[in-house]
């Protein structure tokens, strides 16, 4: 495969100003992979700061209700700051320090990556600014305040659709301007090379742990892995370690109000190949190559594009992709809360919605692992609003 590509997807489509920084980053990232001190420091912080390994939990009551396969939850919601995002943000913060950068910036949709980057920056001692669309700031106001508590400037993005994609545009503009002093902590397996590979590698700890844990619990590998896919980092983090095994994998996109309404973020159901924000991948776009608006109840999945390794895995048939609608995700959100005492993030609720569909079709000896990528505290207010309840 060409460097920086997954089949025909990937690459490095950015203004010249950023090209040297990406090469420098690639170099530092490749060195860090082989650097024992770096890996030791990262492993130490994963254990003592993030609280890894996160549990692999057999959701017994949830499984019994579905009357089929056994459903395990990989509890990334228990990681420090409440989602898998910290795995990548901390790794990149350490890398930024090595690069001699004084400042990091990040985009955020649901606010989880913003919080994670703010946390990593505080831990390592870097200045941090986070870009966030005003639409997302409204529905994730709790996370906005969390970031401010962590000493971060949250910069409002009120252009375009005022969501994640516009926050990424603004981050890229900032990075272009301040590239000499600043590292851009991209939050998902997206953008120009080396981000898709690097972020995947930082997240692959999820799958490495899950493999050991399921072998310990069941003495065998699972039959299915399910994860939600916005940019796709929690999914890649879980899937990557199992790609060579006989394990089926399902990525779940945001079906929003339904594909037929056009108000969704299901890139594989309604998109086509394009080049966007640094890479060649699938994209929701019109016939003239302009990027379409998206909708999802979950800010973290409300994005017009998808990390480039995903379309490659789709084309090769290795991973199947489907979607869950807002309503299905909300139903899963409530069901898990009531049956297991775990309030999932609305993003993760999309993966649960697929498990709710799949498990009953399988026999009781089958095993599903769902990546519970984040906790739902941040969504409580938004869900209350949807139900017409004022808090």
């Amino acid at each position, binding site marked *: 495969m060409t460097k920086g590509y997954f089949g025909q997807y990937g690459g490095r489509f950015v203004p010249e100003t950023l090209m040297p*920084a990406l090469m420098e980053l690639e170099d530092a990232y490749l060195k860090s992979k082989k650097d024992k001190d770096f890996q030791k420091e990262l492993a130490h912080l994963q254990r003592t700061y993030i609280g890894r390994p996160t549990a692999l939990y057999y959701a017994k009551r949830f499984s019994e209700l579905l009357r089929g396969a056994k459903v395990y939850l990989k509890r990334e919601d228990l990681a420090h700051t409440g989602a898998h995002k910290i795995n990548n943000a901390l790794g990149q913060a350490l890398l930024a320090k090595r690069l001699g950068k004084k400042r990091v910036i990040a985009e955020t949709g649901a606010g989880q990556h913003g919080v994670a980057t703010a946390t990593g920056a505080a831990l390592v001692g870097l200045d941090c600014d986070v870009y966030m669309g005003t639409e997302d700031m409204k529905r994730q106001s709790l996370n906005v305040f969390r970031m401010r508590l962590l000493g971060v400037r949250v910069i409002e993005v009120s252009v375009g659709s005022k969501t994640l994609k516009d926050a990424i545009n603004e981050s890229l503009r900032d990075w272009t301007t301040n590239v000499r002093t600043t590292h851009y902590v991209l939050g998902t397996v997206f953008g120009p090379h080396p981000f898709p590979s690097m972020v995947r590698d930082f997240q692959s700890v999820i799958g490495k742990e899950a493999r050991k844990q399921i072998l310990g619990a069941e003495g065998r590998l699972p039959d299915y892995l399910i994860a939600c896919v916005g940019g796709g980092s929690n999914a890649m983090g879980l899937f990557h370690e199992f790609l060579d095994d006989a394990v089926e994998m399902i990525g779940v996109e945001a079906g929003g109000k339904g594909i037929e309404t056009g108000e969704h973020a299901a890139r594989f159901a309604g998109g086509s190949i394009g080049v966007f924000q640094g890479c060649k991948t699938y994209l929701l776009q019109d016939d003239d190559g302009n990027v379409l608006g998206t909708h999802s109840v979950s800010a973290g999945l409300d994005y017009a594009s998808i990390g480039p390794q995903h379309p490659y895995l789709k084309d090769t048939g290795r991973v199947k992709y489907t979607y869950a609608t807002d309503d299905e995700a909300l139903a899963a959100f409530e069901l898990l809360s009531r049956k297991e005492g775990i309030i999932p993030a609305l993003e993760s609720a999309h993966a649960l919605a697929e498990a709710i569909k799949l498990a009953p079709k399988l026999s009781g000896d089958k095993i599903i692992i769902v990546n519970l990528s984040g906790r739902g505290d941040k969504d409580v207010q938004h869900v209350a609003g949807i139900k017409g309840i004022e808090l």
Partner: protein
Amino acid sequence: MKESKITKVFESLRSQNKKAFIPYIMAGDPSIEKTKELVITLEECGADIVELGVPFTDPLADGPTIQRASERALKNGVTLKSVISLVRDLRTRTKIPLVLMTYYNPVFKYGEERFVNDAKDAGVDGVIIPDLPPDEASSFIRLTKKSDIASIFLLAPTSTEDRIKIVVKASRGFIYYVSMTGITGSQLLLDGSIEKSINNIRRITDKSIAVGFGVSTPEEAEAVSRISDGVIVGSAIVKKVQENSDEGIRDFLLKLREAIK
């Protein structure tokens, strides 16, 4: 490989010891009809080459002024296809070299080969794609080489010597030197660093170098023209267009033209 019209413009200016004035406007802002008039105005006011911006939903190399112009043009339904038609219409009225500045996705979606053919037929002389570095442009370079369309690539203050070599080799017509680490319309810094970078590039090539990003006043244009082969002025002109006074635009353009020498 035929010599592009843009290369000839620079050769002719060089023989007269002059520098190129390259204004940028957003196609379709405020309307396609107004853009046609503006191109004629630009020519009358002494532009050597005109850059036509193609609107895009996510212009990540652009500052607020051009972002908003892009939004207005998109609202008017302007697409890459309609900008190519605009060039075709303009060719009945003017021969001034026209360069399209577009992001890559509209070109990718249109189809590179079809785009190069249609652009050439319509009378486009050059293309600038800020998010398509030469590293990702092998097919685009091959296709434009077959036509007489200039493939104009960008260099930046951060470009290393290796990058300069790659960009110089890929560029036809001229090399677009980005004056600063930043986006269009940012504040220009005239501290000698641009001259130093241009001298570095000149050590490697005798291709023409035009400077853009942040040039907003006649004084800045003059300073930049003294150290380069041409000056690109974008956001400042787009702002004047938005203020919508024909006289104001003309006056500003004439002052810029006079300053560039």
